[in-house]
């Protein structure tokens, strides 16, 4: 390749200049890494302007909802569980302590003290005897006797809003719900709490901290540790393996440098361009390293085999580069295209990930082309003297073993091509069945390994409580606006119903006259204001006989004006009650809470706590009076977590014991089905909010986005292959190993029941990028060799020498090199480690088996066609 040969002259002639420039380039970009800003918020998987996110944020504000950290106190040893003076004392102290906590580095991040849900910060509605109802703190102070402790239990258990949330039904656990102003405070807060917990007396109490914000924030912190440990370990492993293969310490440092240059400058660029370090982008080094090293290994491998023939490093380099320039350019371009296609997904962190891995790949390519030759030129000639020859003899055993097996493999492929192809087809059919079994699912808590304290806490607390995963079903009044004429008709009917005797008839007649006059107003709002004002005038002028009649009519106008306060209507509240009952029946919902529950509980307490009165009363007035009774408490605004003050929107708080996206999806589907099957008594709009729901939304976008991205990059790579080989047939051939690899990888995922989650989705791009590399190298070399030998039999023999060894070395280096990821406490990294190894192994094998087998079968046609 002319371009390659010309390009390689620069590092050959000016190796030091090239190296210096490279160092400056890397350091300059690397310096930007210090500006890093970490963002582990899965919410950012969605653009800030995404509808569902805007709605989620608006809902949190409107209903004064916060991200919540759940501190669970569990006692399984005391006969009354947590309801004993000592444990409740701990609960009291922890609540007091927690209410003052803030982030030392950022006082804006703090616990929202007034919204804490804890026994000492909620009101119990208490029967105080003689027709009295009292609002008392459920636990104003820590109890001193067992009787007091049990009274707290009984009061809490009798409140549907507390049972299963604040106190577990088995009495063994209490939940302290700590709302925080920012999710970024969650990890610090949990550490502060743990410090306090360590000072408490031990009486069998166990403490657990969970909630999505903790999981997400903790993930971010551990992600850093992970990157600092796993990535260097992976690098070390790759280094040791290369040392084993090539025996030349000085030489194999160069691919490591290429990888460092690529990783550092890419991360510098990412951060320097203002991107945050997100869960996705934190994986860039891990994805980039194998790809960056691959090209170098091809050059090293080739140089290793060629050097001994000439003993002249310059000639060897020129030869190697001219051999490899085109395949390396194309492998880099295809890999980059695979990742760049992620820019088409609607998920910002995935876009950034794709684009910057693509940039990193091209940086790695240019670095490989110009730096590796420069590096070799800078090595003292003496240190190369024994390279290859000595290396070859030294590693004869291993090299011989690999070489022998590869030769055997080559003969097998040549002799049994049809067996290979039919097996491939069979396996692919099986893989497609596996793919059909794939479960799309994710759950940030499951990003931690099973024995991680967050997973343990999640499990324990969701066993005792009705669920620490929250979603909010927001219902909104969608009443049609009435015209002044329609309002006039309805009000006239209401007025006429009041005309029961002489006096009232006289007043109603006057009111109807005012009504007719004001109905001329252009808007219903101005009509009602004017009507009410005029009627109050008449009321104030009237004598005692008529005053109350006017007052009643004015009240009716006010009621009519507030007709859109639908969440005081008994029929609407009963609809919500039934919807809640239905949600409990589907089995995955732990508990729901709504304004209906508040009304029923208050109604019951107003009637001497008689369970028969645990119902929604029959009139708007009765509902409103239950609610105003509730608001005579210490915390009247608690009502507005469940309904807006204008009573036009209501929030059904849904608790789930399992945060899997598929669980949330089930709930969403059921609600939709219910709302269609049982239409509400008034027109209602409904929408979902809550972190658990947001996760579902971005997952949906991810799945469809990844599919589109993958299909488009598949087409782009195919076009590039056709261009590279100047033949659609050969282009198609190059696509086969990667297609098979992807089918098999995802088939395996389906069979073993691994959820299709974020890291798994991103792997399709990696597969595309790596698997096509092997095919390009293999086909390019095969065609070159075929052109020289003119015999496929000779070519295939040659192919299972150096080219097959390069592929095998690559497979082994990368597959084994990433095993340190398996030690990670974070599941996404483990997943990447396992599948990276599998992808390398499968795509390497697929390339070396399927391609030669196909060419063997089609050789006459393939090569004749080319010549003609």
């Amino acid at each position, binding site marked *: 390749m002319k371009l390659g040969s010309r390009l390689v002259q620069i590092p050959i002639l000016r190796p030091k200049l090239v190296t210096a420039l490279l160092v400056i380039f890397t350091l300059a970009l690397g310096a930007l890494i210090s500006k890093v800003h970490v963002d582990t918020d899965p919410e950012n998987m969605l653009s800030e302007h995404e509808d569902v996110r805007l709605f989620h944020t608006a809902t949190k504000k409107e209903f004064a909802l916060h991200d919540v950290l759940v501190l669970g106190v569990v006692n399984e040893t005391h006969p009354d569980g947590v309801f004993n003076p000592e444990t409740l004392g701990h609960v009291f102290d922890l609540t007091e302590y927690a209410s003052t906590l803030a982030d030392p580095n950022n006082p804006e991040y703090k616990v929202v003290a007034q919204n804490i849900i804890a026994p000492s910060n909620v009101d119990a509605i208490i029967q*105080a005897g003689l027709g009295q109802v009292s609002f008392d703190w459920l636990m104003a102070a820590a109890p001193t006797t067992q009787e007091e402790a049990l009274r707290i239990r009984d009061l809490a258990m009798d409140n549907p809003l507390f049972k299963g949330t604040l106190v577990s039904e088995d009495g063994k656990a209490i939940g302290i719900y700590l709302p925080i102003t920012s999710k970024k405070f969650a990890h610090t807060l949990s550490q502060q709490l743990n410090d306090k917990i360590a000072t408490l007396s031990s009486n069998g109490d166990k403490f657990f901290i969970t909630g999505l914000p903790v999981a997400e924030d903790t993930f971010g912190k551990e992600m850093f540790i992970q990157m600092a440990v796993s990535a260097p370990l992976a690098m070390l492993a790759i280094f040791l393996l290369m040392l084993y293969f090539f025996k030349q310490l000085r030489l194999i440092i160069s691919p490591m440098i290429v990888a460092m240059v690529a990783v550092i400058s890419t991360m510098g660029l990412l951060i320097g361009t203002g991107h945050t370090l997100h869960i996705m982008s934190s994986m860039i080094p891990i994805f980039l390293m194998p790809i960056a090293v691959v090209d170098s290994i091809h050059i090293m491998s080739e140089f290793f085999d060629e050097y001994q023939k000439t003993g002249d490093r310059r000639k060897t380099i020129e030869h190697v580069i001219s051999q490899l320039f085109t395949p390396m350019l194309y492998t880099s371009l295809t890999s980059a295209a695979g990742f760049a296609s992620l820019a088409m997904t609607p998920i910002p962190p995935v876009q950034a990930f794709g684009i910057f891995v693509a940039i990193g790949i091209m940086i790695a390519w240019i670095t490989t082309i110009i730096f590796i030759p420069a590096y070799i030129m800078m090595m003292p000639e003496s240190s190369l003297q024994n390279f290859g020859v000595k290396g070859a003899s030294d590693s004869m055993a291993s090299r011989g073993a690999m070489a022998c097996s590869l030769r055997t493999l080559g003969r097998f492929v040549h002799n049994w091509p049809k067996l290979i192809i039919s097996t491939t087809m069979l396996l692919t059919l099986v893989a497609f069945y596996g793919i059909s079994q794939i479960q799309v699912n994710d759950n940030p808590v499951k990003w931690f390994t099973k024995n991680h304290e967050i997973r343990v806490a999640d499990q324990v607390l969701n066993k005792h409580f009705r669920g620490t995963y929250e979603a909010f079903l927001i219902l909104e009044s969608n009443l049609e606006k009435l015209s002044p004429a329609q309002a006039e008709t309805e009000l006239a009917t209401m007025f006429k119903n009041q005309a029961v005797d002489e006096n009232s008839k006289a007043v109603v007649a006057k009111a109807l006259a005012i009504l007719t006059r004001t109905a001329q107003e252009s808007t219903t709002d101005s009509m009602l204001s004017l009507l009410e004002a005029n009627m109050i005038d008449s009321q104030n002028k009237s004598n005692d006989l008529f005053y109350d009649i006017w007052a009643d009519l004015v009240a009716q106008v006010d009621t009519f004006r*507030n007709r859109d306060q639908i969440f005081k209507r008994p029929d609407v509240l009963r609809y919500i009650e039934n919807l809640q009952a239905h949600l409990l029946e589907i089995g995955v919902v732990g508990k729901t809470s709504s304004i209906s529950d508040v009304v029923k509980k208050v109604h019951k307490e107003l009637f001497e706590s008689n369970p028969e009165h645990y119902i929604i009363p029959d009139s708007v007035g009765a509902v*409103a009076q239950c609610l105003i009774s509730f608001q005579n408490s210490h915390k009247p605004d608690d009502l507005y977590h469940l309904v807006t003050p204008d009573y036009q929107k209501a929030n059904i708080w849904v608790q789930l014991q399992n945060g899997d996206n598929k669980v949330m999806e089930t709930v969403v589907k059921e609600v939709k089905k219910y709302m269609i099957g049982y239409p509400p008594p008034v027109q209602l709009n409904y929408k979902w909010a809550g972190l658990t729901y947001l996760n579902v939304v971005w997952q949906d976008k991810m799945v469809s986005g990844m599919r589109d991205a993958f299909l488009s990059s598949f087409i782009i790579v195919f076009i590039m292959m056709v261009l590279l080989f100047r033949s659609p047939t050969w282009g198609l051939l190059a696509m086969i190993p990667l297609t098979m690899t992807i089918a098999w990888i995802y088939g395996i995922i389906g069979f073993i029941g691994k959820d299709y989650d974020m890291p798994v989705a991103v792997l399709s791009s990696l597969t595309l990028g790596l698997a096509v590399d092997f095919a390009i190298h293999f086909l390019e070399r095969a065609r070159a060799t075929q052109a020289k030998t003119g015999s496929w039999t000779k070519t295939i023999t040659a192919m299972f020498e150096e080219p097959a060894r390069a592929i095998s070395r690559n497979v082994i280096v990368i597959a084994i090199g990433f095993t340190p990821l398996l030690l990670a406490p974070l599941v996404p990294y483990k997943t990447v480690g396992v599948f990276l190894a599998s992808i390398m192994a499968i795509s390497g094998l697929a390339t070396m088996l399927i391609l030669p087998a196909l060419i063997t079968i089609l050789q006459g046609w393939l090569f004749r066609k080319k010549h003609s």
Partner: protein
Amino acid sequence: MLIPRLFFILTLAALVASPTLAAPPLDEIIRKANNVSYYGGDDGRAEVAMTITDNQGRTRERLFTILRKDIQKDGGNQLYFVYFKRPSDVRKTTFLVHKFIDRDDDRWMYLPSLDLVKRIAASDKRTSFMGSNFFYEDVSGRNLDADHHEMIDENDTYYVIRNTPKDPASVEFASYTVWIDKKNSLPMKAEYKDKTATIYRTMEVLGVETIQGYTTVTKSLISDLGTGGNTIAEFTNIKYNLSLSADLFSERYLRTPPKEARQ
């Protein structure tokens, strides 16, 4: 003596020392402030419009009439009757207080749509009055004997008095400080502090008029700094010395409120 004043009154107690040479004794300042705030005339009536605003700026209205009758001399026992007019769905809800100086007050509420009279427990003194930022105790006054009082500052305009509860477990504050206007003897401002000495609640008088010769608060504001919400109460149609019968303040009028309350 004014009715509405009840709304912001704050305590003041009898026994306290530390009178300065020029100033009247502390207990006198406190008693006078209490009398001006809660005991104008022998009885009184006012229309009250409460506007409750939350930290998002959303507002709610409460409109009610309040009647008051003193049955002892100033500083003694009193009767209160509250009749709700708006929101219309709580219309005709009534609220009755028999205030005693030497024991807990008796309080009742009538919910018309449920046709239910409920007594309100004595312990609920410092819970929300109908969802507003006013407490029940702000309506009918806090017993002067419930707190210790000390003068912490005095300037040309105000006596500044700090009040600390005798029974800290019964209240949510650790102390509160009142600014009493030297001219009209009204507590114009109060600040409530919690255990960490943070001010979490304030009362401010925003309007004062002289009606029938009595100094009368016509507008006041209570703010909850914790939630960011506040409530403004405005008083209109204020009248004193109506010769209200003590009979009107009996339990049976809860269901059939007197004309004086309805109109």
